[in-house]
């Protein structure tokens, strides 16, 4: 019943508006509940094929051509977790009830979009859902109160439209070269080595590179993340960019490229360049969220790089890194929200010694940082190890070495972040700063625990994953 994943949040948005005004404070919790259900759905084995009795004819009536597999479940799981974290952060950082209500609604719309992306088998529907997610996100960014929200939203829109144009042009070429726009049709066309099909695929990949902020199309991401209100950046960094850009790439690599050389080489080069450029740009930042944003670019490069490796292992590694990064990065943005709420600034040059004042924030952010930097025994290490193994098995030694050594740069900027924000002598200025409220700490602690648990229990998780497909 994968249709439910689209319908339930959708119906919820509509129903939320039927609520009396006074009851709207419950909106956030209703959205939270739906995301919790979604998280649970990801764990139900073969959820898609379960028959819900009365609801069964609904699926036939709607005739959505959906298909779920391990990858879709992964995205759905991440969406649920990240969405819940974002809602919790919103509860503590957004000021008035109305804003919270609208946030909950827009997040639900975006969640439908992401679920759609996770399950479609058709390039055009993929485009449609990517666009739905993007529109919901524009609004979320622009609804903020910060000084730069327009700029952040504007750059995102500008490049999103470019991405749309690229994708639609590509669909035109697919129509010409294969007569169809399903993933299967695309695969047939590529397998037959039709030149037009390859042009179409290249254009589509470019569109997704823009959406996924791969270098050289990464310009929008840092501005959008930095400008967005705290809960929005948690949500965006956690899942939106990844689902609409990176996951779509994973889907295409998995079901259409089939390990063909030209496609693989594009992914390898773009991924490696993105890793390196993103990491070095991150090293120079002074704004907390901006540094995290560039780090996101770099880490998404890892996922794309993995897709260029050995196909099966590469997809598995990319999926794992997708999950780890979604968890850890949204957690770091939740930490950023806590710091912004307590200090009113995100400029790292003004911080220092916060570790003593905000021990929980400091500790969880260290866990997430080290995980993203790929240090054992945290979850990030295993996914990076698998990525590198996938590359090594595909005999891409140079790329594997780049991937490994770039994690030193990752470590360097995270150490610099930790040093500037949490260590160092406590500043007089922040003598009154205290730990954020429990509501903001819950998501950070929960996500950090997931990181640690997955890292320590990874061998068992891997067994489940290997058994469960993906």
């Amino acid at each position, binding site marked *: 019943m994968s249709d439910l994943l*689209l319908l339930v949040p*959708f119906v919820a*948005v*509509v129903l939320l508006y039927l609520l009396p005004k006074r009851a709207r404070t419950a909106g956030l919790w209703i959205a939270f509940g739906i995301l919790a259900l979604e998280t649970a759905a990801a764990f139900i084995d073969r959820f898609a094929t379960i028959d819900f009795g009365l609801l069964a004819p609904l699926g036939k009536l*709607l*005739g*959505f*051509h*959906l298909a779920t597999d391990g990858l879709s479940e992964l995205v759905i799981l991440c969406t649920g977790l990240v969405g819940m974290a974002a809602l919790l952060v919103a509860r503590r950082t957004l000021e008035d009830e109305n804003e919270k209500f*609208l946030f909950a*609604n*827009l997040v639900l*719309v975006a969640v*439908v*979009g992401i679920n*759609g992306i996770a399950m*479609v088998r*058709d390039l*055009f*529907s993929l485009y*449609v*859902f990517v*666009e*739905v997610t993007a*529109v*919901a996100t*524009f*609004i979320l960014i*622009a*609804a903020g109160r910060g000084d730069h929200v327009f700029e952040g939203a504007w750059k995102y829109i500008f490049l999103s439209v470019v991405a749309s144009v690229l994708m639609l042009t590509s669909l035109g070429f697919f129509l*010409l*070269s*294969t*007569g169809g726009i399903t993933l299967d049709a695309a695969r047939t066309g590529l397998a037959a080595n*039709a*030149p*037009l099909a390859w042009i179409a695929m290249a254009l589509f990949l470019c569109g997704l590179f823009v959406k996924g902020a791969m270098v050289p199309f990464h310009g929008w991401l840092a501005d959008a993340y930095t400008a967005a209100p705290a809960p929005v950046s948690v949500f965006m960094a956690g899942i939106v960019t990844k689902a609409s850009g990176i996951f779509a790439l994973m889907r295409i690599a998995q079901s259409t490229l089939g390990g063909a050389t030209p496609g693989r080489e594009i992914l390898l080069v773009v991924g490696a360049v993105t890793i390196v450029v993103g990491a070095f740009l991150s090293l120079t930042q002074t704004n907390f969220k901006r540094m995290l944003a560039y780090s996101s670019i770099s880490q998404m490069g890892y996922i794309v790089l993995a897709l260029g490796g050995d196909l099966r292992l590469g997809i598995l590694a990319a999926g794992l890194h997708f999950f780890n990064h979604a968890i850890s990065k949204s957690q770091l943005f939740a930490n950023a929200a806590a710091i912004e709420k307590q200090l009113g600034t995100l400029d790292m040059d003004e911080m220092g010694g916060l570790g003593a004042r905000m021990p929980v924030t400091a500790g969880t952010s260290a866990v997430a940082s080290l995980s993203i930097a790929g240090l054992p025994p945290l979850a990030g290490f295993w996914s990076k190890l698998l990525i590198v193994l996938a590359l090594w098995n595909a005999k891409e030694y140079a790329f594997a070495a780049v991937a490994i050594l770039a994690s030193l740069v990752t470590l360097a900027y995270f150490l610099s972040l930790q040093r500037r924000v949490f260590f160092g002598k406590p500043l007089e200025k922040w003598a009154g700063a205290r730990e954020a409220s429990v509501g903001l700490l819950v998501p950070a602690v929960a996500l950090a625990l997931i990181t640690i648990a997955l890292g320590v229990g990874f061998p068992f998780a891997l067994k489940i994953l290997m058994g469960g497909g993906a």
Partner: protein
Amino acid sequence: MIWFTLLLVVLVLAALWASMTTTLLRSTLGLALASALLSVVMFSMGATLAAVMELSVCAGLISVVLVSVASLTRPRSIQEELASRRSRLRRIWPLPLVLIAAGVALSFVHAPVDIVLHLPKGDGDVRTVLWSLRQLDLFGQILILLAGALGVLVLFRKEAKDDD
């Protein structure tokens, strides 16, 4: 065929006018014209339903939106206008030349392309395709309209609040 090509030329000219003219209102008008011409092109190619959509939504609705944005915002002062017009002109004047050059260059290309042809033409009625094969897209349409409605609510209400 000649007429069809001419139609396309006029379409590009309308778009060119929209992008080069000085005031926003004329620009919007140019866009509406281009949209209308495109819908004629679509009609003559047999895409009747899409043509109707294009005409009503793009030429109509979007123009309304653009005009209202242009009217809600105050036009700039004369000095500003002149200064910005000059700098813009400097950037925009090569456009017609570029377009002509590109058109001429492309008109010499006749490389064979490997297009897959689906004969007999037409794979059923567009309504059948839309309603029975592409429900997911329809769902997406509804969803994005909902998102748009939320957007109007958020973006325009915020504005009203700022007024207070």
